């Protein structure tokens, strides 16, 4: 049907195809019925996440239709040494899906943007002693690389590999946090090199690549990128590296001493990283708690996790020891390296004991 102007467009029609227009079998069947929700009603997160990655152990009748050259197909459970009676029982306590991802991260970048604007306007950097500016350009700067390497080559790599959509999405979001935080630090560094006279915006690269204090951390990060077992990668990064090295540096050093050195800005950036980690730790704990409590595989998983802890604890402790000299660099030293390390170890022990894991004897060497 042509309109007077000759334009043609579809004509809406009243169809009454609305819920409740008629009653017939299944006319009220308005829940996804192929999985059992954790609570009475499925959450939005469960609805948009469960079973999107199919599983031959559940509904996938024809199996995976593409294989790798070695015969592996889809998402093999053998890609980790961990075992589970039901991998699908893991749900991300952060319930990440697209809306939470963007709300959360957009909130963080907005917050950081405001803080930096204010700092710039208030001339907050002008009171920094030169030695503190040096500390920030070198050491706070170097940290961006650790975050980036973990994001790109540990977490984003691992989200291809776990047997369920719930695990892979949680790991993917973890990777996104790391990359965002790395960029936050990089762009902060850029800001400083424009606002602080004499601030060397390229010093972070040299520090990371060749300063002896940073070589242990870099080695730890690079070695984490070589881990093929996704479970080991997540454990070694989130349950070993993060409490022993990440929090040690971010929380138990930078956030403690910055204010004493006249710097109120850096802690707000570091705080964003800590906030990310608190979310990422939440899913990590939920995942390992499930695996360690697994009726059939719990003990074997504890052994596997124990081996991993024994392998990675010394690596991270070595990184920390090499980092020690930077504790004496800022003009205002509020706390000693040993104090910081004690806190980090305490935190690490707490994480392990919550999970019922034995403390690796390597911790006391």
């Amino acid at each position: 049907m042509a309109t007077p102007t000759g334009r043609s467009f579809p004509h809406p029609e009243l169809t009454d195809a609305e819920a409740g227009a008629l009653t017939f079998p299944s006319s009220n069947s308005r829940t996804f019925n192929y999985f059992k929700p954790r609570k009475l009603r499925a959450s939005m997160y469960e609805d948009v996440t469960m079973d999107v990655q199919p599983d031959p152990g559940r509904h996938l009748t024809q199996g995976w239709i593409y294989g790798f050259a070695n015969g592996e197909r889809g998402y093999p459970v053998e890609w980790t040494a961990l075992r589970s009676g039901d991998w699908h029982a893991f749900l991300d306590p952060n319930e990440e899906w697209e809306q939470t991802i963007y709300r959360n991260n957009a909130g963080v970048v907005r917050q950081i943007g405001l803080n930096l604007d204010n700092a710039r306007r208030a001339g907050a950097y002008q009171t920094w002693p030169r030695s503190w500016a040096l500390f920030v350009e070198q050491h706070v700067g170097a940290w961006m690389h650790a975050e980036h390497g973990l994001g790109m080559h540990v977490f984003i790599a691992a989200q291809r590999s776990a047997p369920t959509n719930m695990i892979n999405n949680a790991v993917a979001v973890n990777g996104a946090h790391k990359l965002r935080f790395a960029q936050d630090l990089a762009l902060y560094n850029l800001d400083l090199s424009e606002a602080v006279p004499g601030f060397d915006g390229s010093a972070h690269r040299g520090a990371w690549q060749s300063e002896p204090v940073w070589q242990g951390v870099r080695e730890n990060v690079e070695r984490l990128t070589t881990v093929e077992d996704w479970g080991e990668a997540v454990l070694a990064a989130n349950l070993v590296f993060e409490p022993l090295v990440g929090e040690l540096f971010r929380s138990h050093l930078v956030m403690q001493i910055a204010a004493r050195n006249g710097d109120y800005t850096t802690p707000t950036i570091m705080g964003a990283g800590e906030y990310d980690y608190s979310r990422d730790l939440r899913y990590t704990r939920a995942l390992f708690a499930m695996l360690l409590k697994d009726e059939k595989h719990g003990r074997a998983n504890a052994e596997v996790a124990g081996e991993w802890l024994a392998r990675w604890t010394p690596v991270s402790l070595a990184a920390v020891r090499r980092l020690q000299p930077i504790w004496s660099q800022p003009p205002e030293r509020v706390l000693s390296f040993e104090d910081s390390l004690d806190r980090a170890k305490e935190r690490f022990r707490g994480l392990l004991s919550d999970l019922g894991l034995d403390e690796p004897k390597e911790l006391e060497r």
Partner: protein
Amino acid sequence: MSRQSLTKAHQKITELSWEPTFATPATRFATDYTFEQAPKKDPLKQILRSYFPMEEEKDNRVFGAMDGAIRGNMFRQVQQRWMEWQKLFLSIIPFPEISAARAMPMAIGAVPNPQIHNGLAVQMIDEVRHSTIQMNLKRLYMNHYIDPAGFDISEKAFANCYAGTIGRQFGEGFITGDAITAANVYLTLVAETAFTNTLFVAMPSEAAANGDYLLPTVFHSVQSDESRHISNGYSILLMALADERNRQLLERDLRYAWWNNHAVVDAAIGTFIEYGTKDRRRDRDSYAEMWRRWIYDDYYRSYLIPLEKYGLVIPHDLVEEAWNRIWNKGYVHRVAQFFATGWPVNFWRIDGMTDADFEWFEDKYPGWYEQFGRWWEAYNRLRHPGSNKPIAFEDVGYEYPHRCWSCMVPCLIREDMVADEVDGQWRTYCSQTCHWTDKTAFRPTYEGRPTPSMGRLTGEREWEKLYHGWDLADIIKELGYVRDDGRTLVPQPHLDLDDPRKLWTLDDVRGLTFNSPNTLLNEMTPEQREAHLAAYRANRNVTA
């Protein structure tokens, strides 16, 4: 942010990566491609500081539209004919989306270029977005559309329906096998660059014409991320082209990926657009017309052909043959007819075609009625239970087809069917290229060169084999395609919900035995097989 500071910011981000000296990242996913001498080509840049708020804003618009649609009683205007096909479409598409996210580290591991890594990492987040936002759209349909059956079983049905398996290639193809074949050629160079146009642009306009303006809102929002993905893939392609040894692999992979995408996406989207619509205005473009514009002109002529200047061999013959299948061989119509033949094992309802549809088809595809018209008349005649069986079990002059081993769409262009004994089994293929895909491409050597990273075609590729010799009622029960009264089927060959007597139940389909054409083919003697194949190819399969 000013342009200058944006440039500086991009520059700063490039400082994040470094050359490792203690250890290099694990190579989880192998490729036979080499990038040793590749000059670095960079994709479109995106800084996360602006990315997250930008996407959040896009999301807010989508969620606003969803609220508006519900408040505005959109479902009083949606066409059931259209919405029913969404049960299939939206069961499939979140998996390809999430698979694209999972594919990103495969490409990151294969291509030594930190700038591309950044682009791919952002794409990973986009794809998580796409998958979950589409699941949410489906959830909304389930909650507000008159017939939620089929939406309610969505991801299970995706995993056990023959149609879901066809769709699953567009997803599994991104994440398995040679990392570059999968995550670059199949996913980006072909699926995203060519076929997202039909998926995310043509589909939405058809949805709107059928009273559904939410699908357009969601899918246009999804599509707006796609140019960055296409740019990632193009950068990788340019890097790959720098090494002579990659040419042969690129040529192989473009042939495979092009043909498989055509076979799968055109089957599905073609059917949704041509048979799922009530919009029969004469000047509404047919799928063939849209294909000519989006795929042939925009992709083939404007994207693929210019790559020839880099010495890349373009599959001209396969582009022309895909068009030939769509335009001259009735590919989409044959697929739609097959879906409708198989209605009892679907999990959605399929509306029959009426006189208005016939007229439109004949106008758009001259000769349509002669081939398909009487079959659809029979479909309508047999749509209610009581005095007849489902159409697949009535003699309407339609022979149930063999399935293509490679693309898993049946061999519907019967004269083109190839049969061959491969890996000790008689297999049928819809086309020579699908035969080549299985027999030649997905193998550890290719044209004499070792291809140790190439993937394999695996799985129970013929769906019918799982149920060979079963009673149809038992199959449907096993699949779970039964409504909450325990007897009425989810699928129906009509849209009549007003009278329960018009709805098929398990009792109406009991006593019908279902067979696997491939099993029967393998049981034949060589002479029987030859005669059967010749008759199959010669059968025009037209309802008298």
